[in-house]
Protein backbone atom coordinates (compact mmCIF):
# COMPACT_ATOMS: atom_id res chain seq x y z
CA UNK A 1 0.00 0.00 0.00
CA UNK A 2 1.51 3.36 -0.98
CA UNK A 3 1.15 6.58 0.98
CA UNK A 4 -1.40 8.06 -1.40
CA UNK A 5 -3.77 5.11 -0.85
CA UNK A 6 -3.85 5.52 2.90
CA UNK A 7 -7.00 7.38 3.94
CA UNK A 8 -6.71 10.55 5.96
CA UNK A 9 -7.89 10.96 9.54
CA UNK A 10 -9.95 12.81 10.65
CA UNK A 11 -12.66 13.70 8.13
CA UNK A 12 -15.40 16.29 8.68
CA UNK A 13 -18.95 15.14 9.35
CA UNK A 14 -21.49 16.08 6.67
CA UNK A 15 -24.36 15.41 9.09
CA UNK A 16 -23.75 16.66 12.64
CA UNK A 17 -24.70 13.33 14.26
CA UNK A 18 -23.34 10.73 11.82
CA UNK A 19 -19.69 9.77 11.45
CA UNK A 20 -18.32 10.80 8.03
CA UNK A 21 -19.20 8.39 5.19
CA UNK A 22 -15.49 8.24 4.42
CA UNK A 23 -14.85 6.34 7.66
CA UNK A 24 -16.10 3.23 5.81
CA UNK A 25 -12.63 3.10 4.24
CA UNK A 26 -11.10 2.48 7.68
CA UNK A 27 -12.97 -0.84 7.77
CA UNK A 28 -11.83 -2.04 4.35
CA UNK A 29 -9.24 -4.45 5.70
CA UNK A 30 -10.86 -5.46 8.99
CA UNK A 31 -11.05 -3.59 12.29
CA UNK A 32 -7.48 -2.22 12.21
CA UNK A 33 -6.36 -0.04 9.29
CA UNK A 34 -3.55 2.41 8.55
CA UNK A 35 -4.57 6.08 8.32
CA UNK A 36 -2.58 9.26 7.73
CA UNK A 37 -2.66 12.23 10.10
CA UNK A 38 -2.33 15.94 9.21
CA UNK A 39 1.44 15.86 9.79
CA UNK A 40 1.86 12.87 7.46
CA UNK A 41 2.31 10.37 10.25
CA UNK A 42 0.89 6.90 9.64
CA UNK A 43 -1.02 5.38 12.58
CA UNK A 44 -3.45 2.50 13.11
CA UNK A 45 -7.16 3.34 13.19
CA UNK A 46 -9.11 0.86 15.32
CA UNK A 47 -12.78 0.71 14.28
CA UNK A 48 -13.95 -2.59 15.81
CA UNK A 49 -15.75 -2.45 19.15
CA UNK A 50 -13.92 -5.46 20.65
CA UNK A 51 -10.51 -4.19 19.52
CA UNK A 52 -11.31 -0.69 20.80
CA UNK A 53 -12.03 -2.08 24.26
CA UNK A 54 -8.96 -4.30 24.06
CA UNK A 55 -6.70 -1.28 23.41
CA UNK A 56 -8.38 0.91 26.04
CA UNK A 57 -8.17 -1.78 28.73
CA UNK A 58 -4.46 -2.44 28.23
CA UNK A 59 -2.69 0.63 29.61
CA UNK A 60 0.63 -1.24 29.81
CA UNK A 61 0.74 -2.02 26.09
CA UNK A 62 -1.07 1.09 24.83
CA UNK A 63 0.23 4.24 26.49
CA UNK A 64 -1.57 7.57 27.03
CA UNK A 65 1.62 9.46 27.90
CA UNK A 66 1.11 12.74 26.02
CA UNK A 67 4.54 14.15 26.79
CA UNK A 68 6.06 11.25 24.80
CA UNK A 69 6.74 12.16 21.15
CA UNK A 70 5.37 8.75 20.12
CA UNK A 71 1.90 9.86 21.29
CA UNK A 72 0.03 10.86 18.11
CA UNK A 73 -1.50 14.32 17.60
CA UNK A 74 -4.62 14.26 15.42
CA UNK A 75 -4.65 18.02 14.85
CA UNK A 76 -2.20 20.91 15.39
CA UNK A 77 -4.03 22.02 18.53
CA UNK A 78 -3.01 18.79 20.19
CA UNK A 79 0.69 19.65 20.21
CA UNK A 80 -0.12 22.40 22.73
CA UNK A 81 -1.76 19.87 25.06
CA UNK A 82 1.52 18.01 25.56
CA UNK A 83 2.76 20.67 27.98
CA UNK A 84 -0.26 20.33 30.26
CA UNK A 85 0.31 17.26 32.39
CA UNK A 86 -2.62 15.60 34.13
CA UNK A 87 -4.14 12.15 34.49
CA UNK A 88 -5.72 11.99 31.02
CA UNK A 89 -2.23 12.00 29.54
CA UNK A 90 -0.49 9.73 32.06
CA UNK A 91 -0.14 5.98 32.53
CA UNK A 92 -0.56 4.06 35.79
CA UNK A 93 0.71 4.35 38.50
CA UNK A 94 0.83 8.18 38.14
CA UNK A 95 -2.60 8.16 36.53
CA UNK A 96 -4.07 5.98 39.26
CA UNK A 97 -2.75 8.24 42.03
CA UNK A 98 -4.39 11.36 40.58
CA UNK A 99 -7.61 9.60 39.69
CA UNK A 100 -8.03 8.23 43.20
CA UNK A 101 -7.74 11.77 44.62
CA UNK A 102 -10.83 12.74 42.62
CA UNK A 103 -12.95 9.62 42.73
CA UNK A 104 -14.82 10.38 45.95
CA UNK A 105 -16.30 13.49 44.31
CA UNK A 106 -17.71 11.41 41.46
CA UNK A 107 -19.49 8.54 43.22
CA UNK A 108 -23.08 7.73 42.23
CA UNK A 109 -24.29 8.96 45.61
CA UNK A 110 -22.56 12.33 45.18
CA UNK A 111 -23.86 12.69 41.62
CA UNK A 112 -27.41 11.75 42.66
CA UNK A 113 -27.11 14.47 45.29
CA UNK A 114 -26.49 17.00 42.49
CA UNK A 115 -29.69 16.09 40.63
CA UNK A 116 -32.15 18.43 42.43
CA UNK A 117 -29.81 21.36 41.77
CA UNK A 118 -29.43 20.40 38.11
CA UNK A 119 -33.22 20.16 37.80
CA UNK A 120 -33.68 23.65 39.29
CA UNK A 121 -31.02 25.03 36.96
CA UNK A 122 -32.64 23.46 33.87
CA UNK A 123 -36.07 24.80 34.93
CA UNK A 124 -34.66 28.32 35.33
CA UNK A 125 -32.88 28.22 31.98
CA UNK A 126 -36.09 27.09 30.28
CA UNK A 127 -38.04 29.90 31.97
CA UNK A 128 -35.59 32.30 30.33
CA UNK A 129 -35.83 30.50 26.97
CA UNK A 130 -39.63 30.73 27.00
CA UNK A 131 -39.51 34.41 28.00
CA UNK A 132 -37.07 35.15 25.21
CA UNK A 133 -38.40 33.19 22.27
CA UNK A 134 -39.13 31.82 19.82
CA UNK A 135 -36.67 31.78 17.95
CA UNK A 136 -33.95 30.93 20.52
CA UNK A 137 -30.45 29.52 20.02
CA UNK A 138 -30.32 26.62 22.45
CA UNK A 139 -26.50 26.43 22.49
CA UNK A 140 -25.80 29.58 24.53
CA UNK A 141 -29.20 29.62 26.28
CA UNK A 142 -29.45 25.96 27.32
CA UNK A 143 -26.89 23.37 26.21
CA UNK A 144 -23.78 25.29 27.28
CA UNK A 145 -24.84 26.87 30.60
CA UNK A 146 -26.09 23.58 32.10
CA UNK A 147 -22.71 21.77 32.26
CA UNK A 148 -20.79 25.02 32.61
CA UNK A 149 -22.66 26.03 35.77
CA UNK A 150 -22.59 22.49 37.18
CA UNK A 151 -18.82 22.08 36.75
CA UNK A 152 -18.13 25.61 38.04
CA UNK A 153 -20.06 24.89 41.23
CA UNK A 154 -18.50 21.46 41.64
CA UNK A 155 -14.95 22.80 41.29
CA UNK A 156 -15.54 26.13 43.04
CA UNK A 157 -14.76 28.20 39.92
CA UNK A 158 -16.72 31.50 39.80
CA UNK A 159 -19.37 31.15 37.09
CA UNK A 160 -19.11 34.90 36.58
CA UNK A 161 -15.97 34.10 34.58
CA UNK A 162 -17.82 31.71 32.27
CA UNK A 163 -17.55 33.83 29.11
CA UNK A 164 -13.77 33.74 29.48
CA UNK A 165 -13.29 30.06 30.25
CA UNK A 166 -15.92 28.92 27.73
CA UNK A 167 -14.23 30.88 24.97
CA UNK A 168 -10.77 29.59 25.87
CA UNK A 169 -12.11 26.02 26.16
CA UNK A 170 -13.55 26.31 22.66
CA UNK A 171 -10.14 27.44 21.37
CA UNK A 172 -8.54 24.46 23.12
CA UNK A 173 -11.11 21.94 21.83
CA UNK A 174 -11.69 23.16 18.27
CA UNK A 175 -10.34 21.17 15.34
CA UNK A 176 -9.52 24.40 13.48
CA UNK A 177 -7.38 25.96 16.21
CA UNK A 178 -3.82 26.46 15.10
CA UNK A 179 -1.00 25.42 17.39
CA UNK A 180 -0.51 29.10 18.34
CA UNK A 181 -4.21 29.64 19.15
CA UNK A 182 -4.41 26.47 21.17
CA UNK A 183 -1.15 27.22 23.02
CA UNK A 184 -2.37 30.74 23.81
CA UNK A 185 -5.71 29.42 25.09
CA UNK A 186 -3.90 26.92 27.33
CA UNK A 187 -1.63 29.69 28.65
CA UNK A 188 -4.59 31.94 29.45
CA UNK A 189 -6.52 29.14 31.19
CA UNK A 190 -3.46 28.08 33.19
CA UNK A 191 -2.78 31.66 34.32
CA UNK A 192 -6.43 32.09 35.29
CA UNK A 193 -6.56 28.84 37.26
CA UNK A 194 -3.21 29.52 38.93
CA UNK A 195 -4.55 32.88 40.15
CA UNK A 196 -7.79 31.29 41.28
CA UNK A 197 -5.97 28.57 43.23
CA UNK A 198 -3.69 31.16 44.87
CA UNK A 199 -6.82 33.08 45.94
CA UNK A 200 -8.27 29.86 47.35
CA UNK A 201 -5.06 29.13 49.26
CA UNK A 202 -5.60 32.46 51.06
CA UNK A 203 -9.35 32.10 51.47
CA UNK A 204 -10.88 28.66 51.03
CA UNK A 205 -14.26 28.05 49.43
CA UNK A 206 -16.13 24.76 49.39
CA UNK A 207 -15.48 23.34 45.90
CA UNK A 208 -13.47 20.33 44.80
CA UNK A 209 -10.44 22.57 44.15
CA UNK A 210 -10.58 23.74 47.78
CA UNK A 211 -10.72 20.12 48.94
CA UNK A 212 -7.71 19.26 46.78
CA UNK A 213 -5.74 22.23 48.12
CA UNK A 214 -6.42 21.11 51.68
CA UNK A 215 -5.93 17.38 51.17
CA UNK A 216 -3.26 17.19 48.45
CA UNK A 217 -1.38 20.48 48.01
CA UNK A 218 -0.90 21.49 51.68
CA UNK A 219 0.55 18.09 52.69
CA UNK A 220 2.85 18.24 49.66
CA UNK A 221 1.33 15.34 47.69
CA UNK A 222 0.51 17.62 44.73
CA UNK A 223 2.29 20.79 43.65
CA UNK A 224 0.18 23.84 42.83
CA UNK A 225 1.12 23.48 39.15
CA UNK A 226 -0.10 19.87 39.17
CA UNK A 227 -3.43 21.00 40.64
CA UNK A 228 -3.66 23.77 38.02
CA UNK A 229 -3.16 21.18 35.26
CA UNK A 230 -5.77 18.86 36.79
CA UNK A 231 -8.31 21.67 37.21
CA UNK A 232 -7.84 22.73 33.58
CA UNK A 233 -8.83 19.26 32.44
CA UNK A 234 -11.85 19.08 34.75
CA UNK A 235 -13.06 22.54 33.73
CA UNK A 236 -12.67 22.08 29.95
CA UNK A 237 -13.81 18.47 29.75
CA UNK A 238 -16.59 19.18 32.22
CA UNK A 239 -18.54 21.55 29.99
CA UNK A 240 -17.43 21.57 26.34
CA UNK A 241 -18.27 17.89 25.77
CA UNK A 242 -21.59 17.74 27.64
CA UNK A 243 -22.77 20.95 25.98
CA UNK A 244 -22.20 19.30 22.60
CA UNK A 245 -23.88 16.07 23.73
CA UNK A 246 -26.99 17.99 24.84
CA UNK A 247 -27.17 19.97 21.58
CA UNK A 248 -26.55 16.99 19.28
CA UNK A 249 -28.97 14.84 21.27
CA UNK A 250 -31.70 17.44 20.79
CA UNK A 251 -30.95 17.62 17.04
CA UNK A 252 -30.99 13.82 16.71
CA UNK A 253 -34.32 13.54 18.55
CA UNK A 254 -35.93 16.33 16.49
CA UNK A 255 -34.78 14.56 13.31
CA UNK A 256 -36.29 11.24 14.52
CA UNK A 257 -39.85 12.24 15.48
CA UNK A 258 -40.97 8.62 15.98
CA UNK A 259 -38.22 8.09 18.55
CA UNK A 260 -39.01 11.38 20.25
CA UNK A 261 -42.70 10.41 20.44
CA UNK A 262 -41.75 7.08 22.02
CA UNK A 263 -39.64 8.88 24.63
CA UNK A 264 -42.43 11.35 25.40
CA UNK A 265 -44.91 8.48 25.77
CA UNK A 266 -42.69 6.50 28.14
CA UNK A 267 -40.49 8.45 30.56
CA UNK A 268 -39.08 5.11 31.81
CA UNK A 269 -37.23 4.97 28.49
CA UNK A 270 -35.07 7.95 29.49
CA UNK A 271 -31.91 6.20 30.78
CA UNK A 272 -31.81 3.87 27.79
CA UNK A 273 -32.48 6.83 25.45
CA UNK A 274 -29.52 8.72 26.89
CA UNK A 275 -27.20 5.72 26.31
CA UNK A 276 -28.39 5.39 22.73
CA UNK A 277 -27.97 9.12 22.05
CA UNK A 278 -24.46 8.95 23.51
CA UNK A 279 -23.66 6.01 21.21
CA UNK A 280 -25.29 7.59 18.18
CA UNK A 281 -23.75 11.06 18.40
CA UNK A 282 -20.27 10.16 19.82
CA UNK A 283 -18.99 13.65 20.67
CA UNK A 284 -15.36 12.56 21.14
CA UNK A 285 -14.52 11.06 17.76
CA UNK A 286 -11.36 9.24 18.82
CA UNK A 287 -8.74 8.80 21.52
CA UNK A 288 -5.06 8.21 20.86
CA UNK A 289 -2.53 5.76 22.27
CA UNK A 290 0.86 4.41 21.22
CA UNK A 291 2.18 0.86 21.45
CA UNK A 292 4.92 0.34 24.03
CA UNK A 293 6.01 -3.04 22.58
CA UNK A 294 5.57 -5.10 19.43
CA UNK A 295 2.11 -6.66 19.46
CA UNK A 296 -0.82 -7.42 17.20
CA UNK A 297 -4.41 -6.31 17.03
CA UNK A 298 -6.98 -8.51 15.26
CA UNK A 299 -4.08 -10.21 13.48
CA UNK A 300 -2.53 -6.92 12.35
CA UNK A 301 1.08 -6.56 13.55
CA UNK A 302 1.60 -3.32 15.50
CA UNK A 303 5.19 -2.27 16.19
CA UNK A 304 6.53 -0.65 19.35
CA UNK A 305 6.14 3.13 18.99
CA UNK A 306 3.28 2.91 16.48
CA UNK A 307 0.43 5.33 17.05
CA UNK A 308 -2.99 3.78 17.62
CA UNK A 309 -6.19 5.76 17.15
CA UNK A 310 -9.29 4.28 18.74
CA UNK A 311 -12.08 5.67 16.56
CA UNK A 312 -14.90 5.74 19.11
CA UNK A 313 -17.51 6.91 16.59
CA UNK A 314 -16.74 3.91 14.37
CA UNK A 315 -16.63 1.39 17.25
CA UNK A 316 -20.07 2.69 18.29
CA UNK A 317 -21.37 1.77 14.80
CA UNK A 318 -19.93 -1.78 14.84
CA UNK A 319 -22.82 -3.91 13.53
CA UNK A 320 -21.60 -7.04 15.28
CA UNK A 321 -22.43 -5.32 18.60
CA UNK A 322 -25.15 -2.85 17.59
CA UNK A 323 -27.45 -4.29 14.88
CA UNK A 324 -28.50 -1.65 12.31
CA UNK A 325 -26.00 0.72 13.93
CA UNK A 326 -26.97 3.75 11.83
CA UNK A 327 -30.53 3.64 13.16
CA UNK A 328 -31.39 5.63 16.27
CA UNK A 329 -33.28 3.13 18.43
CA UNK A 330 -33.92 4.36 21.97
CA UNK A 331 -35.01 0.88 23.06
CA UNK A 332 -31.78 -0.90 22.12
CA UNK A 333 -29.22 -1.98 24.71
CA UNK A 334 -26.57 0.60 23.98
CA UNK A 335 -24.83 0.45 27.35
CA UNK A 336 -21.62 -1.03 25.95
CA UNK A 337 -20.94 2.07 23.81
CA UNK A 338 -17.48 3.60 24.14
CA UNK A 339 -18.51 7.27 23.99
CA UNK A 340 -16.91 7.83 27.41
CA UNK A 341 -13.98 5.62 26.42
CA UNK A 342 -13.27 2.45 28.39
CA UNK A 343 -10.63 1.19 30.79
CA UNK A 344 -8.66 3.20 33.32
CA UNK A 345 -9.16 6.48 31.42
CA UNK A 346 -12.92 6.18 31.03
CA UNK A 347 -14.42 9.66 31.50
CA UNK A 348 -14.44 10.39 35.23
CA UNK A 349 -17.49 12.61 34.79
CA UNK A 350 -19.64 10.07 32.93
CA UNK A 351 -22.32 9.89 35.60
CA UNK A 352 -22.55 13.69 35.88
CA UNK A 353 -22.96 13.86 32.12
CA UNK A 354 -25.71 11.22 32.27
CA UNK A 355 -27.56 13.15 34.98
CA UNK A 356 -27.32 16.40 32.99
CA UNK A 357 -28.45 14.73 29.76
CA UNK A 358 -31.41 12.95 31.38
CA UNK A 359 -32.66 16.11 33.07
CA UNK A 360 -32.01 18.34 30.04
CA UNK A 361 -33.84 16.12 27.53
CA UNK A 362 -36.79 15.17 29.72
CA UNK A 363 -37.45 18.72 30.90
CA UNK A 364 -36.95 20.39 27.50
CA UNK A 365 -39.33 18.12 25.61
CA UNK A 366 -41.97 18.14 28.35
CA UNK A 367 -41.88 21.92 28.59
CA UNK A 368 -41.91 22.68 24.84
CA UNK A 369 -44.14 20.07 23.14
CA UNK A 370 -43.97 21.78 19.74
CA UNK A 371 -40.19 22.11 19.70
CA UNK A 372 -38.69 22.14 16.20
CA UNK A 373 -35.56 23.27 14.39
CA UNK A 374 -35.95 26.86 13.16
CA UNK A 375 -33.62 26.15 10.22
CA UNK A 376 -33.26 23.03 8.04
CA UNK A 377 -30.74 20.47 9.30
CA UNK A 378 -28.37 21.16 6.41
CA UNK A 379 -28.14 24.79 7.58
CA UNK A 380 -26.70 23.65 10.91
CA UNK A 381 -22.97 23.46 10.32
CA UNK A 382 -21.26 20.75 12.34
CA UNK A 383 -18.07 21.46 14.27
CA UNK A 384 -14.78 20.84 12.52
CA UNK A 385 -13.01 17.50 12.30
CA UNK A 386 -10.32 16.83 14.87
CA UNK A 387 -12.09 18.41 17.84
CA UNK A 388 -15.15 17.86 19.99
CA UNK A 389 -18.06 17.18 17.61
CA UNK A 390 -21.27 19.22 17.83
CA UNK A 391 -23.05 22.23 16.34
CA UNK A 392 -22.10 25.88 16.69
CA UNK A 393 -25.70 26.99 17.06
CA UNK A 394 -29.12 25.42 17.50
CA UNK A 395 -31.94 27.82 16.60
CA UNK A 396 -35.33 26.39 17.62
CA UNK A 397 -38.97 27.44 17.66
CA UNK A 398 -42.03 25.91 19.36
Amino acid at each position, binding site marked *: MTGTEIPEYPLARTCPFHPPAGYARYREHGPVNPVRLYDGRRVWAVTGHAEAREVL*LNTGLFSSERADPRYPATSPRFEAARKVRNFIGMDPPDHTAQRRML*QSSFTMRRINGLRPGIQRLVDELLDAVVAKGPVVDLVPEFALPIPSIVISELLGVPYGDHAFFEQQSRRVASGTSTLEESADAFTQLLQYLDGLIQDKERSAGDGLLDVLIAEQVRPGILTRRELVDISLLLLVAGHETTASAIALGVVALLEHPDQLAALRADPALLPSAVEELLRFTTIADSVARFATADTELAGQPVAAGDGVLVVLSAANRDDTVFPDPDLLDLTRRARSHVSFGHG*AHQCIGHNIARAELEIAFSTLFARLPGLRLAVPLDRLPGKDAGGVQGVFELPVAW
Partner: protein
Amino acid sequence: MRVIADTNRCLGAGQCVLADPERFDQSDDGIVVVLRAEATDPAEQEEVRETVSHCPSRALSLAD
Protein backbone atom coordinates in the same frame (compact mmCIF):
# COMPACT_ATOMS: atom_id res chain seq x y z
CA MET B 1 -22.75 -18.05 39.94
CA ARG B 2 -21.06 -15.49 42.19
CA VAL B 3 -19.61 -12.07 41.34
CA ILE B 4 -16.29 -11.16 42.93
CA ALA B 5 -14.87 -7.63 43.23
CA ASP B 6 -11.16 -6.84 43.37
CA THR B 7 -11.12 -3.60 45.35
CA ASN B 8 -7.44 -3.04 44.51
CA ARG B 9 -8.27 -2.85 40.82
CA CYS B 10 -11.43 -0.78 41.26
CA LEU B 11 -11.10 2.84 40.11
CA GLY B 12 -14.53 3.87 41.30
CA ALA B 13 -16.08 4.51 37.89
CA GLY B 14 -19.48 3.43 39.19
CA GLN B 15 -20.61 1.60 36.06
CA CYS B 16 -21.74 -1.38 38.16
CA VAL B 17 -23.82 0.80 40.51
CA LEU B 18 -25.39 2.48 37.50
CA ALA B 19 -26.31 -0.88 35.94
CA ASP B 20 -27.38 -2.80 39.04
CA PRO B 21 -27.80 -0.67 42.18
CA GLU B 22 -29.39 -3.55 44.09
CA ARG B 23 -26.28 -5.67 43.69
CA PHE B 24 -23.49 -3.07 43.83
CA ASP B 25 -22.72 0.02 45.90
CA GLN B 26 -19.74 2.32 46.40
CA SER B 27 -17.87 3.34 49.53
CA ASP B 28 -17.44 7.08 50.15
CA ASP B 29 -14.21 7.01 48.17
CA GLY B 30 -15.92 5.30 45.26
CA ILE B 31 -14.64 1.75 45.73
CA VAL B 32 -17.04 -1.07 44.84
CA VAL B 33 -19.06 -2.83 47.54
CA VAL B 34 -20.86 -6.03 46.55
CA LEU B 35 -24.26 -6.14 48.26
CA ARG B 36 -25.35 -9.45 46.73
CA ALA B 37 -22.82 -11.83 45.18
CA GLU B 38 -25.08 -14.72 44.15
CA ALA B 39 -26.96 -14.87 40.85
CA THR B 40 -29.14 -17.91 40.36
CA ASP B 41 -31.63 -17.65 37.50
CA PRO B 42 -30.38 -17.43 33.89
CA ALA B 43 -31.77 -13.95 33.17
CA GLU B 44 -30.13 -12.58 36.28
CA GLN B 45 -26.85 -14.29 35.37
CA GLU B 46 -26.95 -12.67 31.92
CA GLU B 47 -27.39 -9.24 33.55
CA VAL B 48 -24.44 -9.90 35.84
CA ARG B 49 -22.26 -11.03 32.90
CA GLU B 50 -23.06 -7.81 31.07
CA THR B 51 -22.33 -5.65 34.11
CA VAL B 52 -18.99 -7.43 34.60
CA SER B 53 -18.09 -6.70 30.95
CA HIS B 54 -18.84 -2.98 31.46
CA CYS B 55 -16.37 -2.54 34.32
CA PRO B 56 -13.67 -0.25 32.90
CA SER B 57 -11.02 -1.42 35.36
CA ARG B 58 -11.79 -5.16 35.11
CA ALA B 59 -12.31 -5.25 38.87
CA LEU B 60 -15.27 -7.65 38.60
CA SER B 61 -15.08 -11.36 37.84
CA LEU B 62 -17.34 -14.40 38.00
CA ALA B 63 -16.97 -17.64 39.94
CA ASP B 64 -19.15 -20.74 40.15
